[in-house]
């Protein structure tokens, strides 16, 4: 479009020159008149083209200073803020089709209402600013997400540690529970042995009582033997001389009975002492038995409590395991979100860059 306009201008200029030449050569006027006429035509041509150049390359804005008419002049910095869109009819009266040059009018752009707010240079500048702001937001957002991820990873690590600690605690409680079970088993064995001992010492006591009864019997027998020996002595005394030998026997029997009685008394004393000792042992064994029975019950309570600790820790492990899974999932999701955001934003920034470049190219044209 721009090239065509230039071509039109050049053709128009040539046409104007041809016109001037024609006037100078063919017009039947005096030489001075020809010169004046040529000067007028050249002036008109000059004014027309100068005006066309001014209109085409620079559109004056209301209330703002006029820019240069040079199309290659560097763009002025865009003022702040962006002005309200305005519209201006651009076609100058001289170039109106009704003014005469129909060919020019054909190549003219149709009358358009131009949006004064559309300034490619300013838009490019604004896009650059926008991009900078987006970049800053991205940096802040990424920093925030990175911090969040750090926090999430920290939570994940701590949940993992809690899980490990609870695992360790569960194992310790389990070992303690197993030890308490062993001790409980040992105490059970001791209790069993004590019960057996109690039973045996009871039997022993019963047997000692039987022995005592037998001793009593033997003592009776001995007493009777003694009485018989006395009777034998009396009978032997009555027999006189003939009974003297019998007297000796009776006397010996009496002595034996007495010794037997003494031995039986000793045995009776020993048995009595034995019974006393047995009684003491029974009492102590019973006490030990009762105490171990109590300890066994206490151990069962300890084992129960340890079992309860194991179960409670198991609950903690279940919760920790779930929390660990969720925090790991969250950490993975965060990483994915950060990557996706980065990709989308990089793409958007790339598109913004392309747009800005396109606008700058457009502006240069």
């Amino acid at each position, binding site marked *: 479009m721009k090239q065509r306009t230039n071509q039109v201008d050049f053709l128009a200029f040539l046409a104007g020159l041809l016109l001037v030449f024609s006037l100078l050569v063919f017009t039947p006027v005096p030489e001075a008149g020809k010169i004046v006429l040529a000067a007028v035509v050249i002036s008109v041509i000059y004014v027309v083209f100068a005006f066309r150049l001014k209109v085409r390359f620079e559109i004056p804005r209301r209330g703002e200073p006029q820019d240069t008419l040079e199309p290659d002049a560097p763009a002025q910095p865009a003022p702040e803020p962006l002005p309200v869109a305005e519209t201006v009819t651009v076609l100058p009266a001289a170039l109106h089709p009704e003014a005469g040059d129909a060919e020019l009018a054909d190549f003219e752009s149709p009358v358009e209402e131009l949006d004064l707010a559309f300034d490619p240079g300013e838009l490019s500048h604004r896009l650059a600013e926008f991009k900078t702001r987006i970049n800053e937001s991205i940096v802040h957002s990424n920093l925030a997400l990175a911090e969040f991820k750090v926090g999430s990873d920290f939570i994940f690590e701590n949940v993992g540690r809690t899980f490990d600690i609870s695992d360790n605690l569960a194992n310790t409680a389990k070992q303690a529970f197993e030890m308490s079970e062993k001790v409980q088993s040992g105490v059970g064995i001791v209790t069993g042995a004590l019960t057996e001992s109690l039973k045996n010492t009871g039997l022993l006591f019963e047997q000692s009582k039987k022995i005592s009864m037998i001793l009593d019997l033997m003592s009776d027998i001995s007493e009777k033997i003694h009485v018989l020996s006395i009777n034998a002595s009396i009978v032997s005394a009555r027999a006189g001389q003939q009974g003297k030998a019998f007297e000796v026997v009776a006397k010996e029997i009496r002595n034996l009975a007495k010794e037997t009685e003494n031995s039986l008394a000793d045995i009776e004393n020993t048995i009595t002492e034995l019974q006393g000792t047995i009684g003491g042992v029974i009492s102590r064994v019973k006490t030990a038995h009762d105490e171990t029975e109590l300890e066994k019950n206490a151990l*069962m309570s300890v*084992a*129960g409590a340890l079992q*309860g600790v194991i179960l409670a820790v198991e*609950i903690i492990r279940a*919760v920790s395991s*779930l929390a660990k899974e969720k925090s790991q999932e969250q950490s993975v999701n965060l990483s994915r979100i950060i990557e996706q955001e980065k990709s989308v934003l990089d793409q958007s920034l790339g598109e913004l860059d392309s747009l800005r470049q396109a606008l700058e190219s457009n502006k240069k044209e």
Partner: protein
Amino acid sequence: MNKLGIDSVIQDKIKIEVSDTATGVMVKFTGDIDMEDPSIVLDPLFEKVHSGVVAKKVPDVVADFQALNFLNSSGIKAVAKWIMKLAMLPADQKYAIKITHNKAITWQVTSLPTLTFLVPGAVKIE
């Protein structure tokens, strides 16, 4: 038959009965849970109880452990898993769980109150 239509479970040394109460349902455990993998029995039961209670909008569930003499760690894990499902429900679907325990059984006194921390306010012990 109870309002949830769940049959009683009898396996090894454990018996689990589901019955209706005035305000909800009761799940009663009797015996010992000491099998190697009690989740085979407990997980499906708790799933039925949970989904039935949510579907029928039953306000509370009583978990009666008073007659349960022994519970191993896999068993308590299954119980905890059930209670954590309650935590995942939206507020308008949450139901209450009341745990009744036997204070003469030491492991119950030590471990069961821990379950109340899983969903504070929704799980109580008495």
